[in-house]
């Protein structure tokens, strides 16, 4: 059988997805035996021009990690889509916008102002900001255009499959690799390498009836480690987050923050989280509800930690 032609790329990402692929450890040799890697910047030295020179549809599968933050991320997404048969949005950033899409609470101007002018570690007396095109004595050099709004991959390219997680667990990555190698893939548009159940269905913590009368923070209170964190008042995204990660965060003693994205059928993760949490608040009247809700620190960036880019509102209107 011909070897699978595989590509992997990062847009606005941290490299954690790449590292998670390497975390399959010795199975990486099986991957090497079954697939030729034609593009993977973190690991092998192919350039954009090598991808441009490929015939269309040349790569069997491309794993795209990272969000669409700038024009380079988008350009390479288009290029890889053209050069691949199957495109996978791999990891939270490509799937939902991920952590980089927290920047959608600001715009380019605000981010540049802080990063290049106001931050305490910035020394920039000339007030220089990066420009897409810079004239130098020898000619012109360019960098990508920084967008106002961070997007998940499927906003700019046709995506065949989604692998959730920040990062996806090595066990799930291997499940996906095996599914690709055996051609055992579900319908286009499916989430693969995850469970169809929620985190709560797979969580080891003891669950009783949830009646929350107040919220606590890990900074100022310590959860008891055998009972559901949410029941104890520590905000947890478990009820609406897709399982499949082996509840790594809960096993590490902290509540889930939702990196595996919502379960099937959820249009907006943050809205669903608000609805789920609201349904377990135990209060007599509106005033009491308000007092309890006021104890949730930073609800916006907790309910939407990994999914602002894919949310219905996409961004904060400024």
């Amino acid at each position, binding site marked *: 059988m011909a070897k699978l032609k595989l590509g992997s790329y990062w847009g606005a990402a*941290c490299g954690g997805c790449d590292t998670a692929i390497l975390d399959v450890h010795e199975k990486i040799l099986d991957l090497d035996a079954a697939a030729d890697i034609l593009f993977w910047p973190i690991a092998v030295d192919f350039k954009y021009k090598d991808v441009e020179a490929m015939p269309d549809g040349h790569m069997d599968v491309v794993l795209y990690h990272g969000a669409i933050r700038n024009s380079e991320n988008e350009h390479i997404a288009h290029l890889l889509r053209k050069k691949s048969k199957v495109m996978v949005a791999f990891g939270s950033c490509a799937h939902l916008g991920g952590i980089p899409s927290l920047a959608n609470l600001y715009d380019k101007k605000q981010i540049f102002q802080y990063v290049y002018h106001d931050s305490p570690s910035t020394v920039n007396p000339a007030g220089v900001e990066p420009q897409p095109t810079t004239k130098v*004595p020898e000619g012109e050099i360019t960098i990508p255009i920084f967008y106002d709004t961070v997007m998940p991959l499927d906003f700019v390219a046709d995506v065949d499959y989604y692998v959730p997680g920040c990062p996806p667990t090595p066990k799930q990555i291997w499940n996906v690799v095996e599914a690709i190698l055996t051609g055992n893939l579900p319908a286009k548009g499916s989430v693969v390498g995850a469970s169809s159940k929620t985190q709560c269905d797979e969580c080891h913590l003891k669950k009783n009836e949830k009646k929350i009368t107040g919220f606590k923070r890990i900074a100022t209170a310590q959860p008891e480690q055998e009972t559901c964190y949410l029941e104890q008042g520590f905000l947890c995204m478990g009820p609406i987050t897709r399982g499949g990660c082996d509840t790594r965060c809960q096993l590490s003693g902290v509540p889930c923050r939702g990196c595996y994205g919502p379960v099937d059928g959820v249009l907006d993760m943050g809205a669903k989280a608000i609805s789920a949490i609201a349904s377990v608040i135990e209060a007599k009247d509106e005033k009491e509800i308000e007092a309890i809700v006021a104890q949730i620190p930073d609800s916006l960036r907790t309910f939407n930690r990994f999914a602002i880019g894919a949310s219905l509102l996409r961004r904060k209107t400024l």
Partner: protein
Amino acid sequence: MKRISIDPITRLEGHGKIEIFLNEEGGVENAYFQIPELRGFEKFVQGMPVEEVPRVVSRICGV
């Protein structure tokens, strides 16, 4: 002037490119190292509960 573009820089975490300009003798006249990437963590962690920050900034570099 001849120009050599190394794009992207590979086998490291992050994005980078190098533009090298060669003079008529084929020597390096000038070289520019560019970082085409910014995500803006400095801005979007502001006001976040302190216990949540390690869970976010660990995604600056995941290698």
